[in-house]
């Protein structure tokens, strides 16, 4: 193809056969798609997400150091079987049986309850998120501000207790609700027999050992 074809004007037709430079790309295309399929199946695009969880330290804390939860701000959430959630406000003691209520993981369930309790913070956080979406503030500013808002004195403290019938999904779901409702003070605590009795009483009135 690179040679120069000299045109012979002298009548005799001396045509050099021109070979087509066209290469059939179909097999190459096949190969390309084959490789794509292979890599699509053997690799994962998204890195898995994680949820940070800080558990309370097991070290003995002295009475003075341990932070007491204000009774008016405490919300106790109990995770029951079959994805059921129970909650009560304030503290529970033998003398004062708390008003336990049943709820669920639907948006109108426990989320509404927590949002109502945390309304002040939730509204501020919503505005802040809207600002971030519109790029009015930077990510760092958002992080700084959200910590500020979340540490508000009026924000509730949620105590999460899971019964043995609960499963891992329930646990992650309730921790997720904490994030959705912008609650920064929460703890996973072991359930007590008293809490179990409360649930029992709510499910079948009269069956538990609680004093009326």
């Amino acid at each position, binding site marked *: 193809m690179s040679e120069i074809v000299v045109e012979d004007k002298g009548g005799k037709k001396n045509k050099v056969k021109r070979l087509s430079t066209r290469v059939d790309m179909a097999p190459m295309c096949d190969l390309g798609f084959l490789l794509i399929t292979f890599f699509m199946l053997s690799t994962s695009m998204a890195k898995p997400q994680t949820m*940070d969880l800080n558990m309370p*330290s097991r070290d003995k804390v002295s009475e003075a150091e341990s932070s007491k939860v204000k009774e008016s701000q405490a919300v106790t959430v109990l995770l029951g079987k079959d994805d059921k959630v129970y909650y009560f406000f304030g503290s529970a003691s033998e003398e004062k049986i708390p008003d336990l209520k049943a709820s669920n993981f639907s948006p109108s369930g426990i989320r509404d309850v927590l949002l109502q309790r945390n309304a002040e913070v939730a509204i501020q956080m919503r505005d802040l998120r809207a600002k971030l979406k519109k790029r009015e503030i930077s990510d760092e500013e958002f992080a700084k501000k959200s910590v500020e808002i979340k540490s508000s004195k009026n924000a509730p403290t949620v105590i999460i207790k899971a019964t043995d019938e609960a499963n891992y999904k329930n646990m992650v779901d309730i921790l997720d609700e904490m994030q959705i409702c912008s609650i920064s003070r929460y703890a996973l605590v072991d359930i007590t027999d008293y809490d179990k009795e409360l649930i029992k009483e709510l499910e079948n009135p009269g069956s538990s050992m609680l004093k009326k």
Partner: protein
Amino acid sequence: MPKAKIARKSTFVDMTAMTDVAFLLLNFILLTSNFVKPEAVSVSAPSSVSEVKIPEVNIMTILVDPDGKVFFGIDNQDARVELLSKIGDSYNISFTAQEKKEFGLVNSFGVPVESLKAFLALPSDKRSLKENALGIPCDSINNQFKTWVKFAREINGKDMAIAIKCDQTTPYPKIKNVMNSLQELRENRFNLITNLEGMPQGL
């Protein structure tokens, strides 16, 4: 009547453009994705709105299957070999160099220390079979899991992140067991691996 002449058109289609597209896509996929590491068990993690990404290096992965069996793995191959020697010393089991080499290639495993030798002798494709997935003992009588975590922390230093990947249906007491073991070691901070889920509207 003259015959209607139908012009024969070539059926040849130029595939060059399509090839270009295919390889462009291939490049993109190669650059953006990472290979799936084979795990001892497949678990389906629950979803959450959390957008924190998992750290890429120096990570300890704890897998818990729906029955509550615990699987364990760390990401550094040299650290794995060192870990096996330490475990061998503490449980009085001597592992051969071959076994250590094999262990270095195991991403995650779930067998008690006593069965580890037999597990490493198996061909790699048989290790993920159900009958070989026994789970690491993690209860108050025989808490080998705690020993693994303790040594892994000693080897990998304090930057090592702990990722827990549990199945959605795992009963809570099993997870509590795992978390209690970690807390006893003063490992109070861990990452729960979840799938991404959109933030609900209006919040």
